[in-house]
């Protein structure tokens, strides 16, 4: 297996490199493994995402944060130097996507374990430490190559991630930061000062890839032609016309925090004021609920609202249950100009795309 340790490169190159290698890979050639980190932070959207819906473009432009689109699926991610990206290119893979992840993710999982992080693979493609996700992975067919990519998450700037995404409200952003903190982890968080250096972590990872694929590793360099192609892809993937191009398909309500954890916000303008229901679901069960808005309640007893929120946590995500809990709430307090049906409607709006508060720029 050919191994390219690219160290730290300009942000655009860190994404372009595997696209270029996939395109130039000849049938029958050996697998290629790349490790690389970006010099500067940037944002990368999934191949089919509507970037204008996912990314706060104005903020990114003001901050000089580049935005690119990868030819791999999934959601928008914030990437920086604290992540060691790995790209594995296989010239002839013929199995299922599930089996691909099963085989390949052994390498990063075992590398984490050798560092002292109790990681495991949670199918299809999450690497987790208990309930928390550590790094992301994705796969694609690019030209004739099967490409599988991921990262070793040495550290992660949750606030920076929450800032570059387009979110419906600051309340939602707060919940996102809280959710990422609850459901994500990093090498640094797990190991503190005992965390290995980037070099050691990279070395462990490469060794585990060699073992997982049963292949010897030999160090290589990008050829002149490959560098030229990297340059071409760096331009293309970060070209605003490509990133913010018209209609692409992956539009889903809410924001995915990890595998089966999603964050939603639903708004309803009731006669008594705006109702904002922010909630997190896990395996289709309410995991966290916040009811806010600019309405007035009497008596002024916030504990009743808190009880409404707690009542839903652990319950299935279902509008009838929301309506029932709202009904009970409104028997205890009066929210002027707001009915249980209005609260149910806020919930329904969170899950309906056409009424989503995330509209295109």
């Amino acid at each position: 297996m050919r191994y390219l340790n690219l160290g730290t490169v300009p942000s655009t190159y860190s994404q372009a490199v595997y696209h270029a290698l996939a395109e130039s890979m000849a049938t029958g050639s050996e697998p290629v493994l790349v490790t690389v980190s970006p010099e500067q932070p940037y944002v990368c959207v999934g191949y089919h995402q509507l970037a204008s819906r996912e990314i706060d473009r104005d903020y990114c432009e003001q901050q000089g944060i580049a935005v690119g689109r990868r030819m791999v699926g999934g959601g928008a991610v914030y990437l920086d130097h604290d992540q060691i990206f790995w790209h594995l290119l296989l010239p002839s893979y013929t199995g299922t996507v599930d089996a691909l992840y099963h085989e390949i993710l052994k390498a990063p999982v075992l590398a984490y374990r050798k560092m002292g992080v109790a990681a495991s693979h949670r199918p299809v493609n999450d690497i987790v430490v208990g309930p928390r996700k550590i790094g992301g992975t994705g796969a694609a067919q690019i030209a004739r190559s099967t490409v599988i990519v991921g990262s070793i998450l040495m550290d992660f700037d949750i606030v920076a991630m929450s800032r570059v995404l387009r979110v419906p409200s600051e309340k939602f952003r707060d919940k996102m930061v809280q959710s990422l903190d609850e459901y994500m982890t990093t090498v640094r968080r797990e190991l503190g000062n005992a965390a290995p250096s980037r070099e050691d972590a990279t070395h462990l990872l490469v060794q585990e890839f060699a073992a997982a694929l049963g292949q010897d590793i030999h160090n290589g360099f990008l050829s002149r032609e490959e560098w030229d192609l990297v340059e071409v892809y760096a331009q293309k993937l970060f070209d605003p016309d490509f990133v913010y191009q018209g209609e692409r398909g992956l539009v889903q309500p809410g924001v995915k925090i990890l595998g089966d954890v999603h964050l939603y916000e639903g708004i309803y303008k009731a006669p008594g004021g705006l109702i904002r229901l922010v909630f997190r679901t896990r395996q289709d069960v309410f995991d966290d609920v916040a009811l806010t808005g600019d309405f007035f309640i009497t008596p002024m007893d916030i504990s009743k609202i808190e009880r409404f929120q707690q009542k839903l946590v652990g319950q299935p995500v279902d509008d009838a249950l929301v309506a029932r809990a709202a009904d009970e709430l409104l028997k205890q307090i009066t929210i002027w100009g707001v009915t249980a049906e209005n609260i149910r409607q806020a919930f329904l709006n969170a899950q309906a795309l056409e009424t989503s508060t995330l509209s295109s720029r």
Partner: protein
Amino acid sequence: MSEVNGCNLPDDLYYWVEKHVWAKPEADGTVLVGMTDVAQSLAGKIVVVSLRSLNKTLARGKSAGTLESGKWVGSIPTPVAGTVIAINEDLKGKPSTINEDPYGTGWIIRVQPANWEADMAELVTGPSGIEAYREKLSADGIQCGSAS
């Protein structure tokens, strides 16, 4: 309809087995193109389909569109060269139709072929076609299951 390793394979379609796509010549001279049960099974539940524009001229093997399943992105190579005269608009709203009905309502594009006779010669069909597909599935150890 034949069943090979749990994969459904209609006998009357023309297959490009390496790419897991099918072609179906129709009475009006056009050719319908889609993905096989094998392809949808390998990919898993499809969440996005993005198809090429109408009237686009495609060479054989060029991408008729891209798709994304939960954890994978890939292109759909056309087994027949020609002009795209129809695309399956229904897939946009419900991409998983490809999982549920890959040979019927989950069709991908309709092509006015440039040279169907030439392309047809590169594809396999009928009992020998099913046999060729069986060999491919066995060689690659592919077994179809329901998409999750």
